[in-house]
């Protein structure tokens, strides 16, 4: 046994590779889940076919069409068809057909397909979301995906870990999204390139899983390889309710070696907004109050879960969206949609004048629904506000939590939720 303690990332990669995995080393890993969606799967299939290869172990794949479902053009539907043909040909049991699908990063944890202690690779940069569940989860692309399918393993470079502890009492209407935007503001969009972020500290103890998914989701916006939560009862209970079989929850050793240790004091923190065009441009909502908006979005793998919709419903209840604003709300999964029905949130959204989209990625990336015209402005719970991300190059996206998005939809301009819910 090695004398120096290990971080969560090092523990998982050691366990899965059967080596003493230390930062900088390359390990070969038989991943637990290789996930892909309707844009990446066909690209993987193209490469697999070119190699005249087939999937080594179909039970470790998950194929979840979520970007262009239901399709808005022929090309997108063709991509879906390729997913169907691939899933049938290879016998992939974790394939989500169009009538049961949802957003990959919401359905895979919800259905217990990814679990604590797993190594998950996904052909989507927001695969890091599963770090909230204590998994080592990271993004890859098409050639890597095809290789992993064909060979059953992938290579990973063991990252150094930056530990972040959260303390203090934030103000009202602050959620996981604000904690991560605030963190990005401190460390920058390259603050964790090729490193693991490890989240802990007293403030996170009472943070619901849905908020944790938001935080891990945006670890990639600092360039991180993973954004992993320390195991606790909340994580354990979430997994026990959903996972069939065994899983392992990890905590770092007391003498683990970190690249850096940061404490983020959130005392008095206000809801954060990332102004165009970097996710790290975080400022308190008060700094941008009054900016007119054309579109408000609640959804995406960052904020598509029950807690997100509950907050949006709380704010929209009995209120009407500003005349010139369109609001798009997309639940992550059918199950979340069902909750929205049962809880009466759908009725609230409808009466407020919001559009309720089908489960999936929604308006996040400017190619399916909610595409912005020249000079239009959106407030959005999504994860990226890059130039042209949601449509025209001159359009602008302000990233915020669901409460800020919903309150701004009512006001017609960026506003603190407390100004709307008095």
């Amino acid at each position, binding site marked *: 046994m090695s004398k120096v303690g290990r971080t969560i990332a090092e523990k998982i990669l050691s366990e899965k590779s059967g080596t003493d995995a230390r930062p*900088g*080393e*390359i390990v070969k890993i038989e991943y637990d889940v290789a996930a892909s969606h309707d*844009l*990446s799967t066909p*690209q993987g299939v193209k*490469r697999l076919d*070119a*190699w005249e290869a087939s999937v080594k172990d179909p039970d470790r794949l998950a194929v979840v069409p979520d970007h262009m479902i239901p399709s808005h053009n022929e*090309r997108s539907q063709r991509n879906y068809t390729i997913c169907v043909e691939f899933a049938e040909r290879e016998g992939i049991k974790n394939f989500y057909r169009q009538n049961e699908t949802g957003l990959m990063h919401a359905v895979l944890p919800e259905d217990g397909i990814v679990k604590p202690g797993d190594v998950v690779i996904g*052909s*989507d*940069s927001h*695969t890091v979301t599963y770090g909230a569940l204590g998994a080592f989860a*990271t*993004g*890859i*692309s*098409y*050639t*890597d995906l095809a*290789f992993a399918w*064909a*060979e059953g393993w992938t*290579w990973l*470079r063991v990252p150094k870990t930056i530990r972040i502890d959260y303390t203090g009492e934030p103000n009202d209407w602050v959620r996981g999204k604000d904690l991560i935007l605030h963190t990005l503001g401190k460390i920058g*969009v*390259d603050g964790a*390139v*090729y490193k693991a972020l490890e989240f802990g500290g007293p403030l996170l103890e009472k943070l619901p899983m849905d908020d944790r998914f938001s935080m891990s989701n945006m670890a990639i916006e600092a*360039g991180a*390889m993973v954004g992993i939560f320390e195991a606790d009862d909340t994580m354990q209970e979430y997994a026990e309710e959903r996972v069939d079989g065994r899983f392992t929850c990890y905590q770092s050793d007391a003498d683990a070696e970190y690249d850096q240790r940061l404490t983020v004091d959130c005392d008095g923190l206000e809801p954060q907004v990332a102004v165009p065009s*970097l996710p790290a441009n975080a400022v308190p909502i008060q700094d941008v109050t009054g900016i007119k908006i054309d579109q408000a979005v609640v959804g995406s793998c960052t904020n598509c879960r029950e807690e997100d919709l509950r907050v949006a419903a709380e704010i929209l209840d009995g209120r009407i969206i500003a005349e010139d604003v369109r609001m798009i709300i997309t639940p992550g999964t059918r199950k979340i949609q069902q909750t929205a029905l049962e809880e009466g949130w759908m009725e609230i959204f409808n009466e407020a004048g919001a559009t309720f989209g089908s489960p999936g990625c929604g308006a996040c*990336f*400017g*190619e399916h629904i909610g595409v912005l015209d020249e000079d239009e402005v959106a407030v959005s719970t999504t994860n*990226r506000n*890059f*130039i*042209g*991300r949601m*449509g025209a*190059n001159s359009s602008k996206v302000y990233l915020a939590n669901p409460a800020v998005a919903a309150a701004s939809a009512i006001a017609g301009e960026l506003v603190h939720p407390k100004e709307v819910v008095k």
Partner: protein
Amino acid sequence: MTRIWKFGDNVDTDVITPSQYKHQGKNVYVEHAMEPIAPTFADEVEPGDIVVTGRNFGSGSSRETAAIVFAEHEVGAIIAFSFARIFYRNAINLGLPVYVCPEAALGIDEGHEINILADENTIVNRTTGETYYPEPHPPFIREILDAGGLANYRELLHSGK
């Protein structure tokens, strides 16, 4: 003459392959590569040209198209202060030489003449006289690059070599 193309920090995948072109087929997105910040790049870049960039090059999406455009234009190498992880990985998988070297990223400018000595892991700036030493690739990464990318590496794996 080998031309140096110099870009700044945080060039993201939505800039490298702009949203409106990225699903219109390889020919289209390759022709519009880097358009938002370098409208002449795709027209003027020649095989062997070197791209020199700042921090976090290729951040954002996991899409491989962002690395494919440089491979398609047969760029000789990309030298960066730092790369976004997935872009870096994609470039290696395509056999596209990538060098992490802050000194070179800061020291090399457009118009400079440079030599890359891959075997010696050294970059020489003939204009300024400086020599730079990029972060060495781990042996496994070297194997993939030497094979010409992950697909070729896989072939080698199965040919029993």
